[in-house]
């Protein structure tokens, strides 16, 4: 096995309940370094819950999750360690509205990584150039379009220099004409070798860069495989039906 095939996320038989509702029913997944994983499925299938257990925004109640060699348990130090190595981009952007774009990006590097302000700002500017909006650095999130806000959110996560990036439906809250600008940034990121887990229904993105795809339904992984396998000959009827529904438009 070569260096790039090293496992970075290992999820084994994870269960999650909300009260009586069984949201995740024994989910297992191994992700290798530099892999791009696309997770899709109907709403309520547990795909968002699953991706949020990986940085412990949701607590799993049974099973085992190991991220970059650290097991997620009730130990707060482990959780903080994992969160430092894991970036997350949300459907609703969740930028901090009282801070400028620059402050949004530099806050965590300065407070958590303890970088000097100047270094944090230099790296923030590089990232803003990478996502194509360096001229917006000193505006507030409320002054930007949805697409620009989501690109800032990506830059904010990257500023912590994470080993893994999680995307929770990053384009679902965007107007159609802005989806492309965000996907372009994500495609560039995928090609640069970032390990990515992406919950999305953007099948064009999946075709372009995904290494493997996972179809979730009713809290379980129904089917997984390369985009080739999933699109050409899905083994499960449910996968085929769902794909036909979202691809028919």
């Amino acid at each position: 096995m070569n260096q790039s095939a090293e496992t970075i996320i290992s999820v084994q038989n994870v269960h999650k309940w909300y009260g009586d509702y069984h949201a995740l029913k024994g989910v297992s997944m191994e992700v290798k370094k530099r892999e791009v994983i696309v997770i899709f499925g109907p709403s309520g299938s547990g795909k968002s819950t699953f991706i949020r257990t990986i940085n412990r925004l949701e607590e799993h109640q049974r099973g085992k999750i190991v991220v970059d060699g650290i097991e997620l348990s009730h130990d707060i130090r482990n959780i903080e360690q994992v969160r430092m190595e894991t970036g997350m981009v949300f459907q609703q952007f969740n930028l901090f509205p009282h801070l400028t774009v620059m402050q949004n990006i530099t806050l965590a590097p300065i407070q958590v990584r303890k970088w000097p302000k100047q270094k944090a700002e230099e790296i923030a500017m590089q990232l803003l150039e990478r996502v194509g909006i360096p001229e917006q650095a000193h505006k507030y999130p409320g002054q930007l379009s949805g697409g620009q806000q989501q690109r800032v959110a990506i830059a904010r996560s990257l500023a912590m220099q994470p080993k893994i990036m999680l995307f929770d439906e990053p384009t679902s809250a965007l107007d159609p004409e802005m989806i492309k600008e965000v996907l372009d940034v994500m495609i560039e990121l995928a090609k640069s070798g970032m390990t990515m887990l992406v919950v999305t229904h953007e099948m064009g993105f999946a075709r372009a860069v995904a290494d493997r795809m996972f179809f979730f339904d009713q809290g379980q992984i129904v089917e997984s495989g390369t985009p080739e396998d999933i699109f050409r000959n899905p083994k499960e009827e449910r996968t085929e039906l769902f794909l036909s529904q979202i691809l028919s438009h």
Partner: protein
Amino acid sequence: MTNLNSALPPLTEQITLLRWLRKNLFGSWYDALLTVLGLWIAYWAVKGFLTWAFTAAKWDVIILNLRLIMIGQYPLEQTGRLWLWLAFLVLLSGSSTGIWARESKYAAVVFLLPGLLALLPFSTEPRVWLVALTAIGLAGWVIGRAKPEILKRGVIAGWVISLPVIILLTHGFSESGTGFWAVAKTTLWGGLLLTFLLTVVAILFSFPLGVLLALGRRSELPIVRWFSVAYIELVRGVPLITILFMAQLMLPLFLPEGLTIDRVLRAMVGITLFSAAYLAENVRGGLQAIPRGQFEAAHALGLNSAQTMVFIILPQALRLIIPILAGQFIAVFKDTALVAIVGLFDLVGIGKTVLAQPDFIGLQREVYAFISLIYWVLSYGMSHLSQRLEERLGVGKR
């Protein structure tokens, strides 16, 4: 053609005024009736008040007792110390206005007020000080505008030490009993001075306490949460006046023989503890308005709970509740009047002693009208300040 153009504007304006009147005041027969009735009531009330104020009212009582109303029995010899800290505050306000309200060119007008007050029939010493205050305020403003970056830190540091400076100067520190720096016993503090100190101390201490209680009430640690809930509900369930009575009358029963706590200090603690409970609930309201996504985004970036609160949640929550906070601080300011009932000589208390003097019996209207005017001016000042703050912090808000 040009003639016609130049003749038009005044004509249009007249029509606009008439239209405005018709639209807003005489739109229908009942609008007209309400307008006439309203004007008549307003005329009647204002005329009555003005007639009283300028013919019947004996304002001598205010002039003769002005010192008492301002600072109570505070020793004459040490009054200079009060002017000193007032000058310090005015200097800080002046430079702060210059630094942080640069865009409002006329903000400095407010510093002309003390100078205008000097026109009133004071004795020479206060007049000199009042003029000096205007000069200091304007000087601070000019310097603040000229060198904002250099002064910023100093001015912030000045504000941070301002309360200790005020208390120290008011209290004095020389035990000798005489001289400029002699201790002025708190029993001698009174009038606006006492009202001001009670208010400032209560606001500054109840604010952090209230924030902590609000966080405590949302804490995941049961004991912290229960304590916060119990404290808030207990204190909110009793009137402030009973807390003040307990602090003044019952507390000495529980203290060991010989140990006494200063009465002014007890009042300060009572008002602070009372205000903190209300503040806690206001802050909690603000915290609840912050979407869950803000916590999640902060946690996902690796910020711990304390960092999330300090950098992300509290700044947004507190900004949301500025109008409520201003309302509460104004309420605290006016509630300090209750200490008059437990025997302290704040504005209202000193008003009562003034009226108890044989020379001034029956002059309640003059005294209370004047005291109300002081309360109103300062309350309005706080309200105005909070609105400016809201505007300033509104930048880039969602």
